[in-house]
């Protein structure tokens, strides 16, 4: 792949205004809704603007090799993570120990370890980068600007603190064996309003708002971000379909694939792609706008292997690093010059007529103070609407 000369001015991806694309909803203009255009066109269009990342500093590589190893705390699937890290080890000869756990407990554990001065983790990954705010303010996060910094979309990083690795989109998944009549056409033409239709009653499932950051971001879009377009009224209609409520997404999609449900929302590519590849009768759509989750990483201020951590940061944000990840999961890259080989070659679902890329991504919650409110008031409201948990 060829690369053009560096042009820092093009480092900002093209942003489109939600207002502009949906004029009928001018009422929400008071909230500035940002969109990142991530279609292949956009990505390919700007990729030419970047140079290849400069090779990492030889001194850094030497220092990292001397440390020999690093530990990453991650919420990502362990096999994928191990395979991905193996590419890094292959390139630089530095071992990676990946510790996987559920996202929030994992992050919390790192914080507690740092608070009492036990330093194990070098690199911390999370799918909720707002979590980084408080530790960054308290000095638990190292300040390091990898050479890929300018290439990353601006809303997918806090320069020097954390950087997004890849973006997951959340849409609606369905089991073709459980559809009847014009169900599939309906799903593809009605956007998010699909969920509000009574036809799904008794054959649908969703995930509780309390289940994690990605779910919270998803519900945040309907309840706060796009309150005027959707809001509680929309969720009430969805709730009226009596979806089974899961507290964890993966078992839900296992059951979707098994045929227990016709549709389920909050389906990420990661959830459904692997099932599709195994031959399960599942498909998915990304209604517009598409809520996205940003898996991000930061370096611990007291990383026991600071150089290895930096080198890992350099590699994971570089084009080869991000491209390597796409081998295992077809998420969106966080820089425009990374090309998903499967997409480029129209492989797998990219070849399917039913598949369409998300158009506009909803990532605004990252800058919303209401989103970071530790009391998470939306959970109680959501529970009330769906008659779930403590509120039941």
């Amino acid at each position, binding site marked *: 792949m060829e690369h053009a000369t560096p042009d820092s001015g093009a480092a900002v991806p093209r942003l489109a205004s939600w207002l502009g694309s949906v004029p009928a909803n001018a009422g929400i203009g008071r909230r500035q809704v940002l969109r990142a255009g991530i279609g292949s066109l956009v990505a390919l269009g700007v990729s030419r603007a970047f140079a290849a990342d400069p090779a990492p500093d030889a001194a850094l590589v030497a220092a990292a090799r001397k440390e020999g190893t690093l*530990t990453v705390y991650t919420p990502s*699937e*362990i*096999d994928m993570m*191990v395979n991905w890290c193996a590419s890094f080890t292959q390139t630089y000869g530095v071992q990676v*120990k*990946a*510790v996987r*756990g*559920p996202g*929030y*407990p994992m992050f*919390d*554990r790192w*914080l*507690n*370890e740092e*608070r*009492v001065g*036990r330093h*194990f983790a070098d690199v911390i990954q999370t799918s909720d980068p707002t979590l980084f705010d408080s530790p960054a303010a308290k000095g638990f996060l190292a300040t390091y600007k990898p050479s890929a910094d300018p290439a990353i979309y601006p809303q997918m990083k806090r320069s020097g603190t954390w950087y997004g690795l890849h973006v997951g989109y959340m849409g609606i998944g369905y089991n073709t064996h459980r559809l009847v009549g014009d169900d599939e056409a309906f799903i593809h033409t009605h956007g998010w309003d699909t969920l509000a239709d009574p036809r799904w009653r008794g*054959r649908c*499932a969703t995930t*509780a708002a*309390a*289940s994690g*950051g990605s*779910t*919270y971001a998803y519900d945040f879009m309907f309840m706060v971000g796009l309150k005027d377009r959707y809001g509680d009224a929309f969720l009430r209609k969805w709730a009226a379909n009596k979806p*089974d*409520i*899961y*507290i*964890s*997404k*993966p*078992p*839900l*999609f*296992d*059951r979707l*694939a*098994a*045929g*227990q*449900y016709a549709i389920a929302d909050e389906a990420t590519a990661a*959830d459904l792609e692997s*099932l599709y590849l*195994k*031959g*399960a009768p599942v498909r998915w759509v990304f209604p517009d706008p598409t809520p996205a989750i940003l898996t991000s990483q930061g370096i611990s201020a007291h990383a026991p292997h600071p150089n290895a951590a930096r080198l890992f940061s350099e590699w994971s944000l570089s084009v080869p690093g991000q491209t390597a990840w796409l081998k295992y999961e077809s998420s969106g890259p966080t820089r425009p010059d990374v090309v998903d080989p499967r997409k480029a070659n129209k492989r797998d679902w990219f070849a399917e007529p039913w598949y369409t890329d998300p158009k506009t991504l909803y990532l605004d919650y990252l800058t919303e103070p209401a989103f970071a409110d*530790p*009391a*998470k008031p939306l*959970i109680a409201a959501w529970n009330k609407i769906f008659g*779930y*948990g*403590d*509120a*039941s």
Partner: protein
Amino acid sequence: MTMRSALAMRAPRARQSMPQRDMSELAGLLPRQQLRRFIMPVSLGLILSLLVLLPIFFMFLGALRSAALADPAGHFTLVKLRQVYTTLPYLRMLGYSLAISGGVAAMATAIGVSLAWLIARTDIPAKRLMEGAVMAPLFLSPFVGAIAWLILASPRAGVLNVIVSELLGTRAFSINISSPGGILFVMTLYYIPYAYLTVSASLRSIDPSFEEASYLNGAGVLRTALRITLPVVRPAILSAFFFIFVLTIGTFAIPAVLGRGAHVPFLAVDIFEATTNYPIDYGKSAAIGTLVFWISLAGVSFYRYASKAARRFVTVTARGYRMRLVRLRGARIPAVLLVGVYVLLAIVLPYLALIYAALTRFTTANVLSAPWTLQNMVDVLTAPEVTESISNTLLVGFITPTLCIALGVCLAYAIRRLRVPGGRLLDYVAMFPVGIPGIVFATGIFWTYLLTPIYGTIGILIVAFIAAYLPFAYRIGDTALLQIDRVLEEASSLCGASHWRTASKVTLRLMRPALLSAWIMVFIFSVREVSAAILLTSSDNIVLSVLSWNYLDYGDVQKAAVIGLLQTVILMIGVVIGRFVLRVRLSRPA
């Protein structure tokens, strides 16, 4: 004279109080209380403090804090406790939990006692095989069993449901395993062996003349069983009930796996969710933990009371009774069928489901058109983290029971034989862990050991498991000790053997069968354990159970199933070694 001087060194304090005239003569007298009064209880107390009391302390402390313990922004508050102890949602959840645990304990005990009676007191054929069948569910972690049942009987997509509806052409007979009833059913299946274990020893050791007298008074088999046999072992039955009650109320795996689509209100599940879901609330999980703790403490007290009474009733004598077995005659076939149905539900179907899941590309209810593959097996068996976790599992599986049994025996010996001061207290504390939900306990262990070198290593898992299973090791050790006639040890003392030599040459040798079966039990638990391990896992100490949990957490039921099967293979190898090399039986002949 050498002995005299050695003894004098051990008795400095008492010597001061002796009258002057006796000094020469009495210098040789050992105040025998010295060792038991001080060294033993203090060191055992220290160990128990580190293993049990400190984690519990951190649980209570956590319930009083507004944020994580190490978070400087946290402050003391009663909000969490007030919320959990006084508000309606929690009280309702408490009601549900008590009802479910009570129901599970009642059903598991009823079935376990029936099976124990059939196997111990009747002429049911192939007894050893039957007993093996009843104990076999112990090899399947309840968590994996729940996954299997989800594959079998989830509404609409459960394999059994689909087969039945295809055959009958109607969905009328659909089973919903994700309902409170389903959870009750699966929990009952996996707790029956505990009831069986608790009661069968008692049933075997009743003086048969009780029953013979009943027959001679004209009572039939059923009447004798109901009016004589069961009342005599009633304390054992009660202790089985409370034991299972305490175990279930702190277990989250089955309701968490099965209740995912239905949200069954269960305290232990809420604890799990408070530590895993958004936003994480350790205060809440600790507060619920304290609530469960009090309930379990009450359960443990009842259990202790009942098991004490059980000992009174049961005659353990050296005389070899010729047990008169009840002739089942025509009831033999139904009796065998009953065991068969249990084995089918607890073992055969779940393992078929696991094998099915392990051999398919994704979970589907359509068995005929299932996408068969060996890829899951290949993937799992070649993954480096699996190899690593197998060796970690084996390491934990061998060290944990060894240390745990050693500690349990020391405790039982100190309390029962040396009658150390504070023995009653030690006895209570040793039973505490059984009443604390695994996750809350693991959180306590986390805070206790965060600053020590074992944190982040395999050592912390071993410590957590030792503490969690100490109650089992201690109880079994205690029971075994009770059954050893003291004169066997006294005879050794009089032959000039010291405490240590007596303990090692006589007491421990005689306890060996019981201790080996306890070892196997704790081995099984350690290989299976999930809840305490999840929170403490790190890159260096991942074990199979955590790996399968992680796979499931990422929706990979297939790999989780492969790991579940792998665990069973390891357990079976361990048990086969135990059974045929060391000649251990899981159920102890009384």
